[in-house]
């Protein structure tokens, strides 16, 4: 028997992950051993850790551009532009969410390192999912992300709706992870390996010799159930409104940005990178999930009165758009010219992450003053009370609706273009109709903000002035600036993102 030889580890290539997980652990341990730190220090440390990791990821990006993609740690992780792009997307989201969280925790007298440590751990899991080149590693990343998210959803321990959202998310999430795992086991049985590179090689030889593999097909079906749950695609979406409503608002923003980005990265790794030979089998399923998510998400969003629930349904409809991009990528997955589906997907993920955090940031600020109440009424007369905030919210809602000169338009246009290029006309038309229905929902919020008078208190007391905390204000300003800059000058982002379709496996 040959002696065990450990794999070669390229430490510098792993540095974004190491900084994040190390920073998270250090924050938890040191935070537990010391007393309460001064206000804002936890958030500052977390943002610094995430920022450092983002800079390191940008360095990796330029190294990959020079040397080409490769795999790390004996083929466990891929070292390619797709992974680094998603890493940067996730880290930008972490920084923005951390800025919101400080005030929210301070308000409920719950300052502490736990939430920040969990953010960093969840981000580490998300990045591992985006970079996974082995189904075992993908599953470990998924669980690191999910377990942190379950706890985060329940992190407002004294509020019973937060507890409820945490337990609901946990039960359904654990169930879907089990489906996902069964799917991995079946694919392993069908191909003899969990490594994506070896799966592709094994399928290449078996598919060209003819015959479908029943184990792999069943595995794909189960994987789609698990992944569909994680991205909140209809019909696996039932948890979304409850969890989004009950979780603390900054955590909701985190789920909608980091959670979605990581889950879609996993879909790309599993379907587009690992199973291109089965694209004719999984593409119709993705088509159906996309259409259902678009229609059901948009239609149900319109009838809600709670703003967080509205945004939950709107995130389902956004998931539908992202699935349209996957469907487009499915037409030419694995070919030398992969089409623009995945490029449109990563641009959409970055744009959506930033603007959804911006939207939830405004909801955090407004919701706090209305004592946690985030019904549509809480937004009444915001334009007279806080014109700047109202303006920022308008930018975010226009972007979510896909109005030109915002990043949302660039993102939606890219997806529709990718679908039309692949002659998926039906799904492109359905997506556009769904966007119109969803626009009605954003208009409803805007009518509350701009056209309704001052919200009338029962006692006739004047509205207490709406205070915008520094952190939240910074996050809102940065997100609004990004949304507009990308909307007006999208060229640099699109040309950067075009590098992501060369995968390492």
């Amino acid at each position, binding site marked *: 028997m040959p002696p065990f030889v450990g794999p070669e580890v390229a430490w510098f290539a792993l540095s974004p992950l190491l900084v994040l997980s190390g920073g998270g652990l250090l924050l938890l341990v040191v935070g537990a051993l010391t007393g309460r730190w001064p206000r804002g220090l936890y958030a500052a440390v977390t943002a610094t850790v995430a920022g450092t990791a983002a800079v390191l990821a940008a360095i990796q990006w330029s190294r990959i551009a020079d040397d080409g993609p490769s795999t790390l740690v004996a083929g466990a992780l891929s070292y390619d532009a797709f992974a680094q792009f998603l890493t940067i997307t996730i880290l930008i989201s972490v920084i923005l969410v951390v800025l919101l969280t400080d005030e929210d925790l301070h308000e409920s007298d719950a300052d502490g390192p736990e939430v920040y440590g969990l953010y960093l751990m969840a981000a580490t899991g998300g990045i591992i999912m985006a970079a996974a080149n082995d189904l*075992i590693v993908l*599953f*470990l990343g998924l*669980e690191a992300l999910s*377990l942190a998210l*379950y*706890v985060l959803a*329940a992190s407002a*321990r004294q509020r*019973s*709706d937060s*507890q*409820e*959202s*945490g*337990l*609901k998310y*946990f*039960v359904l999430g*654990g*169930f879907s*992870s*089990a*489906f996902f*795992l*069964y799917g*991995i*086991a*079946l694919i*392993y*049985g069908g191909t*003899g*390996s*969990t*490594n994506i590179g070896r799966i592709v090689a094994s399928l290449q030889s078996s598919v060209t010799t003819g015959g479908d593999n029943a184990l792999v097909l069943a595995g794909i079906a189960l994987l789609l159930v698990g992944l569909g749950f994680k991205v909140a695609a209809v019909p696996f979406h039932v948890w979304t*409104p*409850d969890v989004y*409503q*009950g979780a603390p608002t900054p955590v909701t923003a985190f789920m909608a940005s980091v959670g979605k980005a990581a889950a879609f990265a996993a879909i790309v790794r599993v379907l587009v990178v690992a199973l291109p030979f089965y694209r004719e089998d999984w593409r119709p399923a993705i088509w159906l999930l996309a259409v259902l998510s678009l229609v059901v998400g948009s239609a149900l969003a319109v009838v*809600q*009165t*709670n703003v967080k*629930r509205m945004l939950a349904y709107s995130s389902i409809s956004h998931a539908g758009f992202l699935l349209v991009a996957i469907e487009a990528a499915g037409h030419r997955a694995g070919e030398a010219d992969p089409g623009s589906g995945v490029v449109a997907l990563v641009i959409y993920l970055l744009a959506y992450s930033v603007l959804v955090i911006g939207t939830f940031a405004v909801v955090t600020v407004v919701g706090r003053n209305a004592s946690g109440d985030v019904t549509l009424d809480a937004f009444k007369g915001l334009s007279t009370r806080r014109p700047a905030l109202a303006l920022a919210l308008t930018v975010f809602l226009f972007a979510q609706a896909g109005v030109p000169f915002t990043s949302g338009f660039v993102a939606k246009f890219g997806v529709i273009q990718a679908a039309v290029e692949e002659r998926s006309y039906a799904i492109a038309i359905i997506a556009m109709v769904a966007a119109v229905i969803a626009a009605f929902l954003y208009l409803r919020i805007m009518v509350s903000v701009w056209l309704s008078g001052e919200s009338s208190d029962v006692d006739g007391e004047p509205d207490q002035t709406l205070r915008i905390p520094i952190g939240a204000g910074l996050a809102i300003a940065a997100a609004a600036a990004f949304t507009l800059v990308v909307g007006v000058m999208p060229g640099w982002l699109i040309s950067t993102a075009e590098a992501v379709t060369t995968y390492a496996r």
Partner: protein
Amino acid sequence: MLAVNFLILAAVLFSIGVFGVIARRNAVMVLMSVELVLNSVMLNLVAFSQITDSIDGQLFALFVIAIAAAEVGVGLAMVLMVYRNRRSIALDELSEMKG
């Protein structure tokens, strides 16, 4: 082949687990059913490891054991938290939010 019997056993376990999650209203029973599904996956992995003659499956089973333990830890903590607040762990009574 003998290993196929293990796959059938795993499928049966999986079905029992799924039934448990859907039919039970007690949160702890649901948690146990999820564990049953994870166990069926482990059985599958080890059986496939025998069939395909590769070590990956057994390695993966070890990871799944660790993850399952972490999941139970988080899950029971959450159930305890809800029980302290409501004196009940029936999942169908968790319906504060609707719409």
